[in-house]
């Protein structure tokens, strides 16, 4: 009796699955097609929304704004080295930050070039005017600079701190610190030479 019932149940299940199979296949095909259409649409939208010319113009405006806000020396540093240095004020010992566009803020001790850590901070614009929350590079640097010079403590509290080397390679950071030292030395020497050159008499 049990065997007969079991066999009947098995037969019924097989029949039902054979009947449902085409319908299931149709539903699955439809879902896959919709998924691929949605992915394609998203890809197209992203490509359409990205305009290199517009981004370049935005970056040029951002650079002009940054230049109007920071010291001449800071601007030259950013142009020539690609980052800004901001001195820290929260502790008695001397320390400073390197501010890169769209990278963490790197804290270090200038006297030893010892890296203290990375402060990961972002300024996402939730209005997404062109589908992206990302500010132009120089606006990102300006936002970091303004927040650091205005309220260093608040910015550092907001940031996620990591050990040096997590996002900015240690080798790159060391190289940048050496570049900065060379740049400052050259700049100081050229400033020292400049008045002498201005007052000198050309040799005949």
């Amino acid at each position: 009796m049990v065997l007969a019932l079991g066999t009947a149940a098995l037969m019924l299940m097989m029949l039902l699955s054979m009947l449902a199979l085409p319908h299931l296949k149709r539903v699955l095909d439809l879902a896959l097609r919709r998924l691929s259409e949605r992915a394609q649409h998203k890809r197209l939208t992203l490509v359409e929304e990205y305009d290199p010319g517009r981004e370049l113009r935005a970056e040029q405006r951002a650079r002009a704004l940054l230049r109007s806000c920071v010291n001449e020396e800071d601007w030259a540093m950013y142009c020539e080295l690609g980052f800004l240095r901001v001195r820290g004020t929260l502790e008695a010992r001397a320390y400073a930050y390197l501010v890169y566009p769209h990278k963490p803020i790197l804290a270090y001790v200038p006297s030893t070039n010892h890296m203290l850590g990375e402060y990961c901070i972002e300024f996402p614009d939730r209005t997404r005017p062109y589908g992206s929350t990302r500010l132009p590079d120089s606006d990102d640097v300006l936002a970091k600079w303004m927040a650091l010079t205005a309220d260093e403590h608040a910015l550092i509290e907001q940031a996620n701190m990591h050990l040096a080397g997590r996002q900015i390679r240690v080798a790159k950071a060391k190289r940048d610190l050496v570049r900065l030292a060379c740049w400052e030395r050259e700049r100081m020497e050229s400033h020292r030479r400049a008045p002498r050159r201005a007052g000198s008499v050309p040799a005949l």
Partner: protein
Amino acid sequence: MKLLRVKPGHGEVLLAEGDVAVPEQYSELLETFGRELEAGMWAAVPTSTRSGRREAELVRNFDDVPADAERVIFFPRAAGGG
């Protein structure tokens, strides 16, 4: 005084401009300032110290904006990144 906002794909955008001494312009500046802060922006005024060093000052009220400020820059609120 100019109220500027930095935006993705734009750079700076002029939101409002006016003289705080003129009542109509003052109210327009005040309204724009409040709207941006409500939208979650931070407002900063670029300033200079006595030694000539440039820095910025964050302002949370329109009354805190220095009287001689030429511009206020709005930028998105900071958030911890990955």
